[in-house]
C-alpha cells in the first residue's frame, strides 16, 4: 500500500508539472504581451517600450521564462495580481480558496450520498412509473443549462419566496460593526464542521461493532451530543450571528450544485446495481432467505459501489466546472469567480494562479479517489 501510494503521488506530481507547462504555454501563446498595454500611450517611446520588455523579461525565450516562473512559484511567489493591485496572487488565493473548497466538498459529499441512495432504490424497483419519472428528472437535472437553472433557483428561493439572499458571501448590514473578519469566521466554521464530521464517522464506525439492540440508541445519543456541542460552541463564541449569515448565503449554491450533480451518481449506481443483481451471490443470498433489504444494502449495493467510486475520478472536473458556473451565478467570491473575472480583464498572473489552484484541487481529489478505490476493493491490492 505504501509503495502504491508513493507511486501515485509521484505520478500526480509529474501530471501536475505537465499541467503547469500546458497552462503556461497556453497563456503565453495569446496574441500580444503586457507591454502592449502601453501601445497607445504617446509618452512611451518605442525605445522605452523595448526597455520595459527587457526589464520584464519578455524578450527571453519561453523556456527560460517558464523555468524562472517555476522557480518563483516553488518559493510561493506567483506574482502580483493586476486587477487586485498591489495584492500578491497567493494572498488572493489564500483568501478565496477555502470558499471554493467548502462549496466543492459539501456539494460532492451530499450529491454522492443522495445519488447512491436514490440509485440503489431505483435499481431495486425497476420498471415502474417511478423509475421513468426519476430517470427523466435526473437526466433533466444532470444536463440542465446550469446558469439558467441557477437563475431559476435564485428567482424561486430568493426573489419570490425571500428565503435566501440573492448571491454574495455575506450581508453587509449584519457585518457593519462586526468585531471579526469574515474569513476568520469562515475558516473557523470549516474547521468545526470538519471536526464534527470526523466525530460522526468515528461514532458510526464504533457503533457498527455493537450488537444491533444497542446500535440505534448509541447512534442517536452520540449524534445528539455532537450537534448540541457544535451549536453550543457557536452560541458561546459570540460569532454565532455571523456564522449563521455565511451559512445562509452558502445554502443556495450548495443546493444548486448538489441537485445538478446527484443525478449522475444516481444513474450510474442504478446501472451498476443492475449488473450486480445478476451475479450468482445475489441468487445465493435470496436462496438463503435473507430479507430483501439485507440483500439490497449488504450484498448488492456494496459491490455496486466500486464503479461509482471510480466515476468520482471522472466527476471531479465536472463538479469543479459546475462550481465555476455556480459561483458566477451566485456571485460567490471563490476561485471560480476569480478565474472568470481575471480572464475577462486579462489579469495573467491571477489566471495562472487560479488555474494552478484548480489543478491542485483536481489532482488531490483524484488521488483521494484512487486511494479510496484501492481501500474499498479487496481484489485490488497494489503492492
Amino acid at each position, binding site marked *: 500500500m505504501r509503495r502504491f501510494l508513493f507511486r501515485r503521488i509521484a505520478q500526480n506530481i509529474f*501530471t501536475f508539472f*505537465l*499541467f503547469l507547462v*500546458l497552462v503556461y504555454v*497556453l*497563456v503565453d*501563446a*495569446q*496574441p500580444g504581451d503586457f507591454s502592449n498595454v502601453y501601445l497607445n500611450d504617446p509618452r512611451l517611446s518605442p525605445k522605452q517600450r523595448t526597455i520595459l520588455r527587457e526589464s520584464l523579461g519578455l524578450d527571453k525565450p519561453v523556456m527560460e521564462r517558464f523555468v524562472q516562473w517555476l522557480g518563483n512559484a516553488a518559493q510561493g511567489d506567483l506574482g502580483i495580481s493586476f486587477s487586485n493591485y498591489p495584492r500578491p496572487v497567493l494572498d488572493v488565493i489564500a483568501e478565496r480558496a477555502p470558499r471554493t473548497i467548502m462549496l466543492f466538498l459539501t456539494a460532492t459529499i451530499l450529491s454522492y450520498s443522495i445519488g447512491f441512495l436514490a440509485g440503489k432504490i431505483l435499481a431495486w424497483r*425497476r*420498471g415502474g412509473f417511478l423509475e*421513468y419519472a426519476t*430517470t*427523466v428528472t435526473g*437526466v*433533466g437535472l*444532470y*444536463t*440542465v*443549462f*446550469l*446558469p*439558467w*437553472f441557477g*437563475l*431559476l433557483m*435564485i*428567482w424561486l428561493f430568493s*426573489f419570490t419566496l425571500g428565503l435566501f439572499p*440573492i448571491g454574495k458571501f455575506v450581508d453587509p448590514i449584519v457585518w457593519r460593526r462586526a468585531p471579526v473578519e469574515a474569513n476568520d469566521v469562515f475558516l473557523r466554521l470549516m474547521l468545526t464542521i470538519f471536526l464534527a464530521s470526523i466525530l460522526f464517522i468515528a461514532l458510526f464506525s464504533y457503533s457498527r461493532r455493537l450488537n444491533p439492540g444497542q446500535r440505534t440508541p448509541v447512534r442517536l445519543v452520540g449524534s445528539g451530543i455532537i450537534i448540541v456541542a457544535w451549536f453550543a460552541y457557536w452560541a458561546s463564541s459570540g460569532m454565532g450571528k455571523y456564522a449563521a449569515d455565511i451559512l445562509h448565503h452558502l445554502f443556495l449554491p450548495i443546493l444548486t450544485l448538489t441537485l445538478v450533480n446527484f443525478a449522475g451518481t444516481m*444513474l450510474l449506481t442504478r*446501472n451498476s446495481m*443492475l*449488473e450486480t443483481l*445478476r451475479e450468482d451471490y445475489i441468487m445465493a443470498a435470496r436462496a438463503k432467505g435473507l430479507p430483501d433489504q439485507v440483500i439490497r444494502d449488504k450484498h448488492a449495493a456494496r459491490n455496486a459501489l466500486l464503479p461509482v467510486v471510480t466515476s468520482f*475520478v*471522472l466527476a*471531479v*472536473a465536472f463538479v*469543479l*466546472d459546475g462550481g*465555476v*458556473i455556480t459561483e*458566477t451565478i451566485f456571485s460567490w467570491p471563490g476561485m*471560480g469567480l476569480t*478565474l*472568470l473575472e481575471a*480572464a*475577462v480583464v*486579462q489579469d495573467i498572473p491571477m*489566471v495562472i494562479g*487560479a*488555474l494552478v489552484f*484548480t*489543478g491542485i484541487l*483536481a*489532482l488531490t481529489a*483524484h488521488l483521494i479517489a484512487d486511494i479510496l478505490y484501492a481501500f474499498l476493493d479487496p481484489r485490488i491490492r497494489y503492492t
Partner: protein
Amino acid sequence: MAEITRPKPGTPLRPQLGRLGPQGEVQVIETPLWKIRLRLLWRSFQSNFKIFLENPIGLIGLAIILLFAFMAAIHPYLLENVWNRNVYDPVIGIDQTITFHPAPPSAQHLLGTDPLGRDVLSQLMFGTRAAFILGILAAFVTVTIATTVGALSAYYGGAIDTFFMRLADLIIMTPIISLLIVMSALFEIGFTHLAVIIGLLGGLGGATIIIKSQALTIKVRSYIEAARVAGGGNAHIIFNHIIPNLLPLSFLYMMFSVTSAIALEAVLSFFGLLNIRMSWGLMIFTTQRAGYLLDLSKWWLIFPAGLAITMLCAAFYLVGRALDEVVNPRLRKR
C-alpha cells in the same frame, strides 16, 4: 433426397455461398459481398432498433431531437418565403412597428422580441441549427479521434498506449470549462474552432479510455487471430476488424459528446466569451446585458433559450442511455 455431388472439376476452390440445384450440383449465388454485408447490417440494425424501441426513455429523446431537427430545417425556408428578412433576421432584423422592445408574444412574434427588437422564435430556430452543427461536428471529431486512438493503443500497447493513457488522465483531470474560459478570453474563438477544440479535448480524454478498454476485449477474440493467420497486416486488422466492432460503442459516445458540446458552447456564450453570430447561450447573454435576467415577467427572453438547451442536451443524453442498453446486454430487462 438430393444427392450431394462434388462441384465439377475446374471450379475455383474458394469458399462461396452456394445451394444445391435441381440436379444436385452446387449453384453459386452471384451476390456481391457488399450486398451481403449490407443485408447483415440492416438485419442487426432492425433487431437493435427493436430493443431500442422497448425503452420509452430513448423514444422520448428521439422525439425531442426530431422536433428540434425539424425546427432547424424549416428556418431557412421560413426566412426565404414567409418571413420578411429585414424584420425576422436572427442577428440584424428589427421590427420598427413596435415602439418598445422587448415586446411580449403576439401574432407577428410568437415568442416576442428581444431587447434589440429581434424575433425570439427566429433566433431560437437559428440557434437550433447552430447547436446541431456544433454538437455533431464536435461529436464527430471526438469519436473519430477516440476510436482511432483507442484501437491503436489497445492493439500496439507499449509506449503508444502509455502516452495516450497518461494524456487522457491529464485531460480528464483538467476542468475544461475553466480552461476554455481562459482560452476564449485570451484568443478569438469562433464556431469551428470551438467545435474542434471540444472534439480534441473529448476525443483524447475520457472517451479514449472507455473505447480502448472495449478494444482490448476485441483484440483477444479468435477472429483477430484468424485474420492474422490469414496474413492480414496490422493496418488491415485495425481498420477492418477492430474498428468496425468498436463503432456501436463509438456511436453511443457520440450522443454524450453532443450533449457536452452543446452545454459547453452555451456556457461560454453565456459568459460572452465567444465570437459567434447567434446561439442559445448568446440569447441569454443579451438578456443579461440588457438587465432583464431576473425579471420573469419578461419570461420569453430567457425561458425559450434555457429550456431549449436543457431539452436538447437531455434528449441526446436519453438516447445515449437507451443505446447503452442496446450495446450492453447486461442492462436490459430480464
